Protein backbone atom coordinates (compact mmCIF):
# COMPACT_ATOMS: atom_id res chain seq x y z
CA UNK A 1 0.00 0.00 0.00
CA UNK A 2 2.54 2.54 1.07
CA UNK A 3 4.77 1.65 -1.84
CA UNK A 4 1.86 2.01 -4.22
CA UNK A 5 1.32 5.57 -3.01
CA UNK A 6 5.02 6.30 -3.39
CA UNK A 7 5.00 4.94 -6.92
CA UNK A 8 2.08 7.13 -7.87
CA UNK A 9 3.89 10.17 -6.51
CA UNK A 10 7.06 9.29 -8.39
CA UNK A 11 5.09 8.86 -11.58
CA UNK A 12 3.58 12.31 -11.15
CA UNK A 13 7.04 13.79 -10.61
CA UNK A 14 8.28 12.01 -13.70
CA UNK A 15 5.41 13.43 -15.69
CA UNK A 16 6.24 16.96 -14.59
CA UNK A 17 9.92 16.48 -15.37
CA UNK A 18 8.95 15.15 -18.78
CA UNK A 19 6.86 18.23 -19.44
CA UNK A 20 9.82 20.41 -18.54
CA UNK A 21 11.97 18.40 -20.93
CA UNK A 22 9.48 19.01 -23.75
CA UNK A 23 9.03 22.68 -23.03
CA UNK A 24 12.68 23.58 -22.84
CA UNK A 25 13.21 26.53 -23.32
CA UNK A 26 16.99 26.21 -23.18
CA UNK A 27 18.92 23.06 -23.74
CA UNK A 28 20.05 23.11 -20.13
CA UNK A 29 16.48 22.96 -18.90
CA UNK A 30 16.09 19.82 -20.93
CA UNK A 31 19.24 18.29 -19.55
CA UNK A 32 18.18 19.19 -16.03
CA UNK A 33 14.82 17.58 -16.59
CA UNK A 34 16.40 14.46 -18.04
CA UNK A 35 18.72 14.22 -15.08
CA UNK A 36 15.83 14.53 -12.68
CA UNK A 37 13.84 12.04 -14.71
CA UNK A 38 16.71 9.59 -14.44
CA UNK A 39 16.93 9.99 -10.68
CA UNK A 40 13.23 9.36 -10.38
CA UNK A 41 13.55 6.30 -12.58
CA UNK A 42 16.10 4.91 -10.17
CA UNK A 43 13.71 5.48 -7.30
CA UNK A 44 10.84 4.06 -9.29
CA UNK A 45 12.67 0.83 -9.98
CA UNK A 46 13.77 0.48 -6.38
CA UNK A 47 10.28 1.09 -5.03
CA UNK A 48 8.73 -1.18 -7.63
CA UNK A 49 11.14 -3.90 -6.59
CA UNK A 50 9.85 -3.53 -3.07
CA UNK A 51 6.25 -3.49 -4.19
CA UNK A 52 6.65 -6.81 -5.95
CA UNK A 53 9.05 -8.06 -3.28
CA UNK A 54 11.89 -8.70 -5.67
CA UNK A 55 14.83 -6.74 -4.31
CA UNK A 56 16.99 -7.93 -7.24
CA UNK A 57 15.78 -4.78 -8.86
CA UNK A 58 18.18 -2.77 -6.79
CA UNK A 59 21.02 -3.85 -9.05
CA UNK A 60 19.19 -2.32 -11.96
CA UNK A 61 18.59 0.82 -9.94
CA UNK A 62 22.33 1.07 -9.33
CA UNK A 63 23.06 0.64 -13.02
CA UNK A 64 20.55 3.34 -13.83
CA UNK A 65 22.03 5.81 -11.41
CA UNK A 66 25.39 5.18 -12.97
CA UNK A 67 24.26 5.31 -16.57
CA UNK A 68 22.26 8.45 -15.96
CA UNK A 69 25.30 10.15 -14.53
CA UNK A 70 27.53 9.15 -17.42
CA UNK A 71 24.90 10.22 -19.92
CA UNK A 72 24.59 13.67 -18.38
CA UNK A 73 28.35 14.09 -18.21
CA UNK A 74 28.71 13.03 -21.83
CA UNK A 75 26.00 15.42 -22.94
CA UNK A 76 27.57 18.30 -21.05
CA UNK A 77 31.00 17.54 -22.37
CA UNK A 78 29.49 17.65 -25.79
CA UNK A 79 27.71 20.93 -25.13
CA UNK A 80 30.90 22.53 -23.90
CA UNK A 81 32.76 21.44 -26.99
CA UNK A 82 30.09 22.43 -29.46
CA UNK A 83 28.11 25.25 -27.86
CA UNK A 84 24.55 24.98 -29.09
CA UNK A 85 23.48 27.77 -31.39
CA UNK A 86 20.28 28.25 -29.41
CA UNK A 87 21.83 28.55 -25.98
CA UNK A 88 22.66 32.20 -26.09
CA UNK A 89 19.81 33.42 -28.23
CA UNK A 90 16.97 31.95 -26.21
CA UNK A 91 17.64 32.78 -22.60
Amino acid sequence: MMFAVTIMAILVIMGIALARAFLGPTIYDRILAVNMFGTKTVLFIAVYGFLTERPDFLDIALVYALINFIGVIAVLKFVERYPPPTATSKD
Partner: protein
Amino acid sequence: MLVLTTIAIVRLRSLFAIVMLSGIYSLLSANIFVILDAVDVAFTEAAVGAGISTVLMLATIGITGYEMKPRSKKRRYVPLLVVTVTGAVLVYGMMDMPGFTDSTAPIHQHVAPRYIIDSPHEIGIPNMVTAVLASYRGYDTMGEVIVVFAALVGVLSLIGVRVPKVAPNYIEPPARPILQVMAKFMIPFIILFALYVQFHGDFGPGGGFQAGVIFSVAIILYTLTFSQYDGMRLVPPKVLKILAAAGVLIYGGTGVWTMLRGGSFLNYSVLGETSVAGQHLGILLIEFGVGLTVATAMMLLFFAFVSRGEKNL
Protein backbone atom coordinates in the same frame (compact mmCIF):
# COMPACT_ATOMS: atom_id res chain seq x y z
CA MET B 1 4.14 8.91 -21.97
CA LEU B 2 5.94 6.82 -24.57
CA VAL B 3 3.62 8.14 -27.23
CA LEU B 4 4.13 11.71 -26.10
CA THR B 5 7.87 11.29 -26.18
CA THR B 6 7.73 9.83 -29.66
CA ILE B 7 5.65 12.71 -30.94
CA ALA B 8 8.05 15.17 -29.40
CA ILE B 9 11.01 13.38 -30.97
CA VAL B 10 9.43 13.53 -34.38
CA ARG B 11 8.50 17.18 -34.06
CA LEU B 12 11.80 18.51 -32.83
CA ARG B 13 14.33 19.77 -35.33
CA SER B 14 17.39 19.96 -33.14
CA LEU B 15 19.17 16.64 -33.27
CA PHE B 16 20.59 17.31 -29.88
CA ALA B 17 17.24 17.60 -28.13
CA ILE B 18 16.20 14.44 -29.92
CA VAL B 19 19.10 12.56 -28.41
CA MET B 20 18.07 13.77 -24.98
CA LEU B 21 14.51 12.71 -25.50
CA SER B 22 15.43 9.32 -26.84
CA GLY B 23 17.34 8.86 -23.61
CA ILE B 24 14.08 9.49 -21.78
CA TYR B 25 12.36 7.12 -24.17
CA SER B 26 14.60 4.25 -23.27
CA LEU B 27 14.30 5.03 -19.57
CA LEU B 28 10.54 4.83 -19.96
CA SER B 29 10.57 1.61 -21.88
CA ALA B 30 12.88 0.12 -19.29
CA ASN B 31 10.28 1.03 -16.69
CA ILE B 32 7.73 -0.87 -18.68
CA PHE B 33 10.02 -3.89 -18.84
CA VAL B 34 10.40 -3.74 -15.09
CA ILE B 35 6.64 -3.67 -14.68
CA LEU B 36 6.34 -6.66 -17.01
CA ASP B 37 8.86 -8.46 -14.81
CA ALA B 38 11.43 -8.79 -17.57
CA VAL B 39 14.30 -7.84 -15.33
CA ASP B 40 17.14 -8.87 -17.60
CA VAL B 41 15.68 -6.99 -20.54
CA ALA B 42 15.28 -3.90 -18.39
CA PHE B 43 18.85 -4.28 -17.31
CA THR B 44 20.05 -4.39 -20.89
CA GLU B 45 17.83 -1.51 -21.90
CA ALA B 46 19.22 0.51 -19.01
CA ALA B 47 22.80 -0.14 -19.94
CA VAL B 48 22.56 -0.08 -23.71
CA GLY B 49 19.60 2.14 -24.50
CA ALA B 50 20.03 4.91 -21.99
CA GLY B 51 23.77 4.95 -21.68
CA ILE B 52 25.81 3.76 -24.58
CA SER B 53 23.46 4.75 -27.35
CA THR B 54 23.21 8.29 -25.99
CA VAL B 55 26.95 8.60 -25.86
CA LEU B 56 27.42 7.09 -29.30
CA MET B 57 24.70 9.23 -30.84
CA LEU B 58 26.31 12.33 -29.38
CA ALA B 59 29.62 11.29 -30.83
CA THR B 60 27.88 10.88 -34.16
CA ILE B 61 26.41 14.36 -33.96
CA GLY B 62 29.93 15.52 -33.31
CA ILE B 63 30.71 14.26 -36.80
CA THR B 64 27.53 15.27 -38.58
CA GLY B 65 26.49 18.58 -37.06
CA TYR B 66 23.65 20.01 -35.08
CA GLU B 67 20.53 20.58 -37.07
CA MET B 68 18.60 18.23 -39.23
CA LYS B 69 18.69 19.05 -42.90
CA PRO B 70 15.49 20.74 -44.03
CA ARG B 71 13.74 18.12 -46.00
CA SER B 72 11.71 18.54 -49.12
CA LYS B 73 7.95 18.74 -48.82
CA LYS B 74 7.24 16.40 -51.68
CA ARG B 75 8.43 13.18 -50.19
CA ARG B 76 6.74 13.62 -46.87
CA TYR B 77 3.71 11.51 -47.58
CA VAL B 78 5.35 8.34 -48.83
CA PRO B 79 7.07 7.53 -45.52
CA LEU B 80 3.87 8.35 -43.71
CA LEU B 81 1.99 5.90 -45.87
CA VAL B 82 4.57 3.17 -45.36
CA VAL B 83 4.57 3.66 -41.61
CA THR B 84 0.79 3.68 -41.40
CA VAL B 85 0.44 0.51 -43.43
CA THR B 86 3.11 -1.27 -41.41
CA GLY B 87 1.54 -0.15 -38.16
CA ALA B 88 -1.89 -1.28 -39.30
CA VAL B 89 -0.53 -4.69 -40.25
CA LEU B 90 1.18 -5.02 -36.90
CA VAL B 91 -1.94 -4.06 -35.01
CA TYR B 92 -3.94 -6.50 -37.13
CA GLY B 93 -1.46 -9.21 -36.26
CA MET B 94 -1.79 -8.38 -32.60
CA MET B 95 -5.54 -8.94 -32.68
CA ASP B 96 -4.94 -12.65 -33.06
CA MET B 97 -2.50 -12.77 -30.21
CA PRO B 98 -3.69 -14.25 -26.96
CA GLY B 99 -4.36 -11.89 -24.10
CA PHE B 100 -1.54 -10.76 -21.91
CA THR B 101 -0.73 -13.22 -19.08
CA ASP B 102 -2.90 -15.84 -20.76
CA SER B 103 -1.17 -19.06 -19.78
CA THR B 104 -2.79 -21.16 -22.47
CA ALA B 105 -1.22 -19.07 -25.21
CA PRO B 106 0.81 -21.09 -27.70
CA ILE B 107 4.03 -19.38 -26.75
CA HIS B 108 3.64 -20.64 -23.22
CA GLN B 109 2.95 -24.19 -24.37
CA HIS B 110 5.88 -24.87 -26.64
CA VAL B 111 9.26 -24.71 -24.93
CA ALA B 112 8.55 -22.47 -22.00
CA PRO B 113 7.32 -25.21 -19.67
CA ARG B 114 10.45 -27.19 -20.32
CA TYR B 115 12.61 -24.15 -19.54
CA ILE B 116 10.71 -23.42 -16.40
CA ILE B 117 10.30 -26.92 -15.08
CA ASP B 118 13.54 -28.54 -16.13
CA SER B 119 16.08 -25.77 -15.88
CA PRO B 120 16.56 -25.95 -12.12
CA HIS B 121 17.81 -29.51 -12.21
CA GLU B 122 19.24 -29.55 -15.72
CA ILE B 123 21.28 -26.38 -15.44
CA GLY B 124 21.15 -25.78 -11.73
CA ILE B 125 21.31 -22.00 -11.63
CA PRO B 126 18.66 -19.75 -10.12
CA ASN B 127 18.32 -17.20 -12.90
CA MET B 128 16.27 -18.87 -15.57
CA VAL B 129 16.88 -16.15 -18.15
CA THR B 130 20.58 -16.84 -18.09
CA ALA B 131 19.91 -20.55 -18.38
CA VAL B 132 17.79 -20.00 -21.47
CA LEU B 133 20.12 -17.46 -22.98
CA ALA B 134 23.35 -19.28 -22.50
CA SER B 135 22.42 -22.92 -22.61
CA TYR B 136 19.19 -23.71 -24.41
CA ARG B 137 19.65 -20.87 -26.83
CA GLY B 138 23.41 -21.00 -26.99
CA TYR B 139 23.47 -20.74 -30.77
CA ASP B 140 21.35 -17.61 -30.82
CA THR B 141 23.51 -15.87 -28.27
CA MET B 142 26.61 -16.80 -30.17
CA GLY B 143 25.02 -15.26 -33.22
CA GLU B 144 24.37 -12.07 -31.28
CA VAL B 145 27.95 -11.86 -30.11
CA ILE B 146 29.14 -12.32 -33.66
CA VAL B 147 26.76 -9.57 -34.78
CA VAL B 148 28.30 -7.21 -32.24
CA PHE B 149 31.73 -8.23 -33.41
CA ALA B 150 30.79 -7.79 -37.05
CA ALA B 151 29.39 -4.32 -36.33
CA LEU B 152 32.64 -3.46 -34.65
CA VAL B 153 34.67 -4.70 -37.60
CA GLY B 154 32.43 -2.72 -39.94
CA VAL B 155 32.81 0.54 -38.04
CA LEU B 156 36.53 0.09 -37.64
CA SER B 157 37.05 -0.59 -41.29
CA LEU B 158 34.94 2.43 -42.19
CA ILE B 159 36.36 5.05 -39.89
CA GLY B 160 39.03 3.44 -37.76
CA VAL B 161 40.55 4.67 -34.53
CA ARG B 162 43.09 7.42 -34.62
CA VAL B 163 45.36 7.25 -31.65
CA PRO B 164 46.48 10.72 -30.68
CA LYS B 165 50.23 10.79 -30.48
CA VAL B 166 50.74 13.78 -28.26
CA ALA B 167 49.52 14.20 -24.73
CA PRO B 168 47.21 17.20 -24.37
CA ASN B 169 48.97 20.03 -22.72
CA TYR B 170 47.37 20.53 -19.35
CA ILE B 171 47.40 23.96 -17.89
CA GLU B 172 47.64 23.80 -14.14
CA PRO B 173 45.27 23.42 -12.39
CA PRO B 174 43.41 20.83 -14.44
CA ALA B 175 40.37 21.95 -16.29
CA ARG B 176 37.72 20.00 -14.45
CA PRO B 177 39.01 19.29 -10.95
CA ILE B 178 35.72 18.17 -9.45
CA LEU B 179 34.82 15.83 -12.25
CA GLN B 180 38.26 14.35 -12.38
CA VAL B 181 38.57 13.69 -8.69
CA MET B 182 35.11 12.13 -8.55
CA ALA B 183 35.71 10.06 -11.65
CA LYS B 184 38.92 8.71 -10.26
CA PHE B 185 37.18 7.85 -7.06
CA MET B 186 34.30 6.10 -8.76
CA ILE B 187 35.96 4.22 -11.60
CA PRO B 188 37.37 1.29 -9.58
CA PHE B 189 33.97 0.75 -8.04
CA ILE B 190 32.22 0.88 -11.39
CA ILE B 191 34.63 -1.70 -12.77
CA LEU B 192 34.10 -3.93 -9.77
CA PHE B 193 30.36 -3.54 -10.13
CA ALA B 194 30.62 -4.55 -13.78
CA LEU B 195 32.54 -7.66 -12.82
CA TYR B 196 29.99 -8.41 -10.13
CA VAL B 197 27.23 -8.22 -12.71
CA GLN B 198 29.30 -10.42 -14.99
CA PHE B 199 29.84 -13.22 -12.51
CA HIS B 200 26.47 -13.11 -10.81
CA GLY B 201 24.52 -13.54 -14.02
CA ASP B 202 23.79 -17.04 -12.79
CA PHE B 203 22.09 -15.84 -9.65
CA GLY B 204 20.33 -12.60 -10.43
CA PRO B 205 19.64 -10.35 -13.37
CA GLY B 206 22.72 -9.58 -15.33
CA GLY B 207 25.31 -11.30 -17.43
CA GLY B 208 27.84 -10.72 -20.11
CA PHE B 209 26.04 -8.14 -22.21
CA GLN B 210 25.19 -5.84 -19.34
CA ALA B 211 28.53 -6.28 -17.64
CA GLY B 212 30.38 -5.50 -20.84
CA VAL B 213 28.48 -2.27 -21.23
CA ILE B 214 29.02 -1.20 -17.62
CA PHE B 215 32.70 -1.95 -17.90
CA SER B 216 33.02 0.13 -21.01
CA VAL B 217 31.08 2.90 -19.31
CA ALA B 218 33.80 3.15 -16.69
CA ILE B 219 36.41 3.64 -19.38
CA ILE B 220 34.18 6.09 -21.21
CA LEU B 221 33.82 8.11 -18.02
CA TYR B 222 37.59 8.20 -17.73
CA THR B 223 37.95 9.31 -21.33
CA LEU B 224 35.29 11.97 -20.90
CA THR B 225 36.67 13.50 -17.75
CA PHE B 226 40.31 13.29 -18.66
CA SER B 227 41.04 13.04 -22.35
CA GLN B 228 40.98 10.76 -25.29
CA TYR B 229 44.70 10.37 -25.05
CA ASP B 230 44.47 9.13 -21.49
CA GLY B 231 41.65 6.76 -22.25
CA MET B 232 43.59 5.16 -25.04
CA ARG B 233 46.66 4.97 -22.89
CA LEU B 234 44.74 3.15 -20.18
CA VAL B 235 43.29 0.63 -22.58
CA PRO B 236 45.17 0.71 -25.87
CA PRO B 237 42.93 0.09 -28.89
CA LYS B 238 45.41 -2.49 -30.20
CA VAL B 239 44.91 -4.64 -27.13
CA LEU B 240 41.17 -4.07 -27.28
CA LYS B 241 41.01 -5.36 -30.84
CA ILE B 242 42.78 -8.55 -29.85
CA LEU B 243 40.54 -8.97 -26.80
CA ALA B 244 37.38 -8.47 -28.85
CA ALA B 245 38.39 -11.30 -31.12
CA ALA B 246 39.42 -13.35 -28.10
CA GLY B 247 35.93 -13.00 -26.65
CA VAL B 248 34.35 -14.55 -29.71
CA LEU B 249 37.05 -17.20 -29.70
CA ILE B 250 36.31 -18.11 -26.09
CA TYR B 251 32.68 -18.58 -26.98
CA GLY B 252 33.39 -20.66 -30.04
CA GLY B 253 36.22 -22.45 -28.31
CA THR B 254 33.89 -23.59 -25.56
CA GLY B 255 31.72 -25.12 -28.26
CA VAL B 256 34.70 -26.85 -29.83
CA TRP B 257 35.80 -28.07 -26.44
CA THR B 258 32.42 -29.64 -25.82
CA MET B 259 32.75 -31.41 -29.15
CA LEU B 260 36.17 -32.69 -28.20
CA ARG B 261 34.73 -34.03 -24.99
CA GLY B 262 32.26 -36.00 -27.04
CA GLY B 263 29.17 -33.83 -26.80
CA SER B 264 27.50 -31.78 -29.47
CA PHE B 265 28.46 -28.15 -30.11
CA LEU B 266 27.79 -25.96 -27.05
CA ASN B 267 26.39 -28.82 -24.97
CA TYR B 268 28.14 -28.04 -21.73
CA SER B 269 26.96 -31.07 -19.81
CA VAL B 270 30.05 -33.00 -20.84
CA LEU B 271 32.46 -30.43 -19.44
CA GLY B 272 32.20 -31.33 -15.78
CA GLU B 273 31.94 -34.49 -13.80
CA THR B 274 28.24 -34.03 -13.39
CA SER B 275 25.99 -32.51 -15.97
CA VAL B 276 25.08 -29.57 -13.73
CA ALA B 277 28.70 -28.73 -12.98
CA GLY B 278 29.45 -28.87 -16.68
CA GLN B 279 26.59 -26.53 -17.48
CA HIS B 280 27.79 -24.16 -14.81
CA LEU B 281 31.32 -24.06 -16.16
CA GLY B 282 30.14 -23.70 -19.74
CA ILE B 283 27.83 -20.81 -18.94
CA LEU B 284 30.54 -19.08 -16.97
CA LEU B 285 32.94 -19.40 -19.90
CA ILE B 286 30.62 -18.18 -22.59
CA GLU B 287 29.37 -15.33 -20.44
CA PHE B 288 32.96 -14.32 -20.04
CA GLY B 289 33.40 -14.41 -23.79
CA VAL B 290 30.26 -12.32 -24.28
CA GLY B 291 31.32 -9.79 -21.67
CA LEU B 292 34.79 -9.47 -23.14
CA THR B 293 33.54 -8.92 -26.67
CA VAL B 294 30.81 -6.49 -25.70
CA ALA B 295 33.04 -4.42 -23.43
CA THR B 296 35.86 -4.13 -25.91
CA ALA B 297 33.49 -3.54 -28.82
CA MET B 298 31.77 -0.68 -26.99
CA MET B 299 35.05 0.93 -26.03
CA LEU B 300 36.40 0.65 -29.55
CA LEU B 301 33.23 2.06 -31.05
CA PHE B 302 33.41 4.97 -28.65
CA PHE B 303 37.05 5.60 -29.42
CA ALA B 304 36.39 5.35 -33.12
CA PHE B 305 33.63 7.93 -32.99
CA VAL B 306 35.32 10.44 -30.73
CA SER B 307 38.61 10.24 -32.55
CA ARG B 308 36.79 11.17 -35.72
CA GLY B 309 35.07 14.10 -34.09
CA GLU B 310 36.99 16.85 -32.46
CA LYS B 311 40.62 16.35 -31.56
CA ASN B 312 40.32 16.45 -27.80
CA LEU B 313 36.82 15.28 -27.01
